[in-house]
């Protein structure tokens, strides 16, 4: 048995496909980072060779159009630790049959990829609702969230359309990836620098009103926390003000923010 170990690069998956076709072998596992493999398994380390990446991409486009290619990039946003294997298996089949087979749902490989994609899509949709903005002292809106999948740049355009004249920052605290809207464009980047946010004075008041509203619309007689937990998983609530204790001061440190830095981000 053979497994492919990929470097931390989105294009590596294409080189894995290239290797598999040229060496005429089918890895049982394709992975990044550390993985527990069975003892009789040989590991081949794949490196990224731009020429091969291009060849495979062309092949993929030929077999399933641009949409098949963008499916791959989209699925790579998943946090599933088997995502490389799942993507590999589905695309491998499409390439060997020279056909886009993605909607052949009775094939477990296609279904696995479909599920991966639905999870990303569902979470993106949910986050459009679950994200909370807080007004900072400088008037910029700040939001911290920790989604399962890497979707901050999928969520940000929704808010750009909705609030074209406001400046905002959406911060994925799990990956320390920021999507920043400066009133014109959205920029997305990673930064591990500690940050502190100084909130606007009104913030305490409006979060308080929101908590009041949240509690007053609840119908006590119909408690159904199982349904609530299905619709709004508990792990998301750490970032949502209605589930937190009332705000008591105006300094927020999702990971120790420097206020000057906040303005730098927007520039």
């Amino acid at each position, binding site marked *: 048995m053979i497994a492919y170990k990929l470097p931390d690069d989105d294009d590596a998956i294409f080189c894995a496909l290239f290797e598999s076709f040229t060496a005429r072998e089918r890895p049982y596992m394709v992975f990044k980072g550390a993985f527990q493999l069975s003892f009789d398994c040989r590991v081949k380390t794949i490196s990224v060779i731009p020429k091969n990446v291009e060849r495979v991409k062309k092949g993929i486009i030929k077999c399933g159009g641009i949409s098949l290619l963008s499916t791959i990039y989209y699925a790579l946003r998943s946090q599933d630790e088997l995502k490389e294997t799942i993507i590999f298996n589905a695309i491998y089949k499409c390439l060997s049959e020279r056909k886009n*087979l993605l*909607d*052949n*749902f*009775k094939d*477990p490989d296609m*279904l696995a990829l479909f599920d991966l994609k639905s999870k990303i899509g*569902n979470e993106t*949709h*949910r986050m*459009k*609702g*679950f*994200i*909370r*903005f*807080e*007004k900072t002292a400088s008037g910029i*809106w700040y*939001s911290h969230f920790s989604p399962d999948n890497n979707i901050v740049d999928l969520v940000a355009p*929704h*808010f750009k*359309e*909705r*609030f*074209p*004249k*406001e400046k905002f920052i959406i911060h994925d605290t799990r990956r320390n990836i920021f999507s920043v809207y400066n009133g014109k464009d959205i920029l997305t980047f990673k930064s591990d620098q500690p940050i502190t946010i100084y909130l606007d004075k*009104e913030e305490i008041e*409006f*979060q*308080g*009103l*929101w908590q*009041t*509203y*949240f509690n*007053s*619309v*609840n*119908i*006590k*007689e*119909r*408690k*159904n*926390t*199982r*349904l*609530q937990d*299905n*619709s*709004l998983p508990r792990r998301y609530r750490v970032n*949502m003000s*209605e589930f937190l204790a009332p705000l008591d001061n105006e300094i927020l440190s999702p990971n120790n923010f420097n206020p000057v830095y906040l303005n730098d981000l927007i520039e």
Partner: protein
Amino acid sequence: MLDAKRLTILTESAKYDVSCSSSGSARKNSGGIGNASYGGICHSFTTDGRCISLLKILMTNKCAYDCLYCVNRRSNDVPRASATPDEICEVTMEFYKRNYIEGLFLSSAVEGNPDKTMELLLETVIKLRKVYGFNGYIHLKGIPGADKLLLDRAGSYVDRMSFNIELPSEKSLKMLAPQKSRKSIFLPMSNMATEYIMARKEKNYRFLPAGQTTQMIIGASPETDGQIIKLTEGLYDRFKLKRVYFSSYVPTNYKTSLLPTTPVGLLREHRLYQADWLLRFYGFKADELLSTDENFDLSVDPKCSWALKNMHLFPVEVNTAKPEMLLRVPGIGFKSASKIVAARKYSKLDFNDLLKMRVVLKRAVHFITCNGKFCGQEKLTAVKNIIALSERADTYEQISMFSTNDITFSVLGGEL
């Protein structure tokens, strides 16, 4: 600014209005702040499992009327409060910018008379759009009996309007809401429907982009489920409504022999929503589901009871059945049906394939064949018992799924 105390009073009594839906309007941003999302978005979920999408609030809960089933009725001793148009606008804007809500659901008790009340509502929505530049979703409750011009004007500022028909029959309305009548509610509804149809003919999509809806209270009066869904179907046909909402009666603090003292089970509400779903998306007619003297069987869902009454149409062959017919199979919803239709292009499907595609067979197995093979029970009573048993286990989780939010999760995830 609105303080916590008044906010509580004005939102507490608005909460029984079940229409949380913020869908159906794709209002684009045009300069101000906000837009509307066609599929609707849920922003939070309360401990009762319902979706919060809109700031649902009354202008005032001071009411000149005395509807027996309502907490705001004149004779009820509850704290009263009002808000000004600016206060409503401000809290809407601040909530919206923080992404707490998709928009505003504004309603009001009848303070003074219908015209005065409607004027204040209209002033608020105009201000919100024009002065505050709000482009998000607005659902406005129309006040029956208000001047037609006021109502029509409101229609061009808001996304959706609704007049509640309150109770499923004229008789019950007379008994429980003596100041209201069928006619006084149907008239503005039908006027609005006419305006709506005219606007669409002229390609004007700014007039009520998300159409008109209504709501009725279930269980405060003796109507059968059959009457209720027949009425529902009529409302869709006659007034081009987008949704009919049902709200289980919750006893208010008033003892009268005219009203039940216990709330209706949520299961009944749930069955009605399932039936409503069948009417709107699955091509069923009310008469197919129930006759007007019948109630839904609480032990199995409406599609299932329909199928059990129509066994001569089953089993259907999964590999060849028309999509419309697949949708009529108990346990097969949009998601499963579309997977089946996509996958059978490649090769014939057997039961194993269906399982692999995660089509839930618990119910469906008694109504389908795969390549001519049948694996279910043939005896009707046996089928019903098995389904009723398995149903008991899921109902808890599904319940009020349909009352929670619109297209978003229910169509995508809703296996009916």
